[in-house]
């Protein structure tokens, strides 16, 4: 299996994750979408030195992965390419922000270190939450939920089609590299002399297939609405899930729960 094919399989496997069954999978997409958005919003809004307050936000992704029966490992594995980037965002903070904000025994910790860690946590938490949504909700369901929120058709269609076309493009690359290697044994990669035609063919072919697929959707009555993905209604459980989590997020943001809990025991 070549690299592109692997990437393709991984994207397709996302669909399989979303097709699994669990209490979270059964919830209405709209509820999950809103909870995710609220989560990201609240997480990002923590101040850059509020590491202890932020810590408690991990509750949501951890609970989510437990309930949806998806191992957290999958998330980190699939996001292994973007994770380092997210982690690197605050990497220079310790150099710029040297003011000491905290001492642990004899070690003094600068504001830069704290803010770096906070940023890192924010990034990782938000990634975990977004992945949870995508892994428990199919792309069609997400688009349907967005439509319920009156997001314009053009945007939801764009989202859906981008998702489809990415896998289509990867599939084309994978097919073409395979056929190339079958007739060019022993070559590593694709020879420079073939790059031009390879790329040109790739673009033409993917465009052709993309058009054909879109036509095929139109032929079966697609006009930018996702009726077919709307079978999961806002049940009592969905409402409860949404209200409880969003309520908790607000509590976690308003009060520094770890500190309060800590002070109970001092």
């Amino acid at each position, binding site marked *: 299996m070549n690299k592109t094919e692997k990437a393709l399989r991984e994207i397709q496997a996302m669909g399989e994750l979303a097709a699994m069954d669990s209490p979270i999978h059964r919830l209405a997409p709209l509820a999950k979408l809103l909870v995710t958005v609220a989560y990201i919003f609240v997480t990002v809004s923590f101040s850059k030195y509020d590491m202890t307050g932020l810590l408690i936000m991990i509750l949501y992704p951890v609970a989510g992965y437990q309930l949806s029966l998806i191992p957290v490992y999958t998330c980190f594995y699939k996001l292994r390419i973007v994770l380092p980037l997210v982690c690197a965002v605050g990497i220079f903070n310790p150099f710029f922000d040297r003011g000491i904000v905290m001492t642990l025994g004899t070690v003094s910790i600068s504001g830069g270190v704290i803010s770096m860690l906070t940023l890192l946590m924010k990034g990782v938490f938000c990634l975990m939450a977004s992945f949870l949504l995508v892994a428990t909700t199919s792309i069609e369901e997400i688009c349907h939920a967005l439509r319920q929120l009156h997001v314009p058709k053009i945007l939801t269609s764009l989202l859906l089609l981008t998702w489809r076309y990415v896998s289509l493009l990867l599939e084309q690359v994978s097919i073409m590299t395979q056929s190339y290697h079958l007739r060019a044994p022993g070559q590593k990669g694709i020879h420079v002399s073939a790059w031009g035609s390879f790329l040109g063919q790739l673009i033409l072919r993917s465009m052709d297939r993309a058009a*054909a*697929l879109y036509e095929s959707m139109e032929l*079966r009555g697609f006009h930018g609405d996702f009726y077919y993905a709307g079978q999961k209604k806002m049940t009592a459980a969905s409402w409860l899930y949404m209200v409880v989590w969003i309520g908790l997020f607000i509590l976690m943001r308003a009060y520094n729960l770890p500190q309060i809990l800590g002070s109970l025991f001092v």
Partner: protein
Amino acid sequence: MDMICFEDVTFAYEKENMVLDHLSFSIKEGEQVGLIGANGAGKSTLMKAMLGLISYEGHIYVDGQEVKPQNYAAVRKTLGYVLQDSDNQMFMPTVFEDMIFGPVNYGMSREEAEERVEETLARMGLLHLKNRHNYKLSGGEKRMAAIATILAMEPKGMLMDEPSTALDPRNRRRLIEVLNELPVTKLIATHDLDLVLETCDRVLLLDDGKIAADGAAGEILRDKELLERHNLELPFCLAGVRVKLRSDT
């Protein structure tokens, strides 16, 4: 009443190279028509024209409505189209979701649609594929599933582009049975002339964008000279083919 009517339809992908050359013919409601012709004769193109997927000159009417942008939705609901390439036909993650897509989009309730999908799968003997992922199907399974997605829409007319390619003998037989049980108007483009003999009353022979012959299936498909003139051969069952086995020499 005419289900499909072509009036002087002309089309070319690239100028000079006429693919549909002043075509005129009509197909009555309930007729079963085989569309035959050598590779590149224009069969697939003719089907695309009927659905408004290419812009041609002339007029095409489907179920009394002219094929033009404001009627596309109605025309496409009337005619189900099985594409020559099943990979382009299926776009949802699983067979079931793909099959439910059309009916639900055309306003059927989820429950009804699910029932219809089950029924169609049973009729095609495909129940075991229901929850399979599309990209994990074999070539022939994909073909059967693609045909099922269109059958599930229960269109008034069906356009099928090479429905029997990639099918094993048993699935091909099943397809023929399903087609014969289905009373709707059908236009079947294929190189499988035996299938035409078993499913169609009438045959249109296309060559170089023109209708070279139009008549009863039994007559045209028996006319060896006519077929050979248009780069085709007699159907196996009529040719009395005596295959010379390599191992016998």
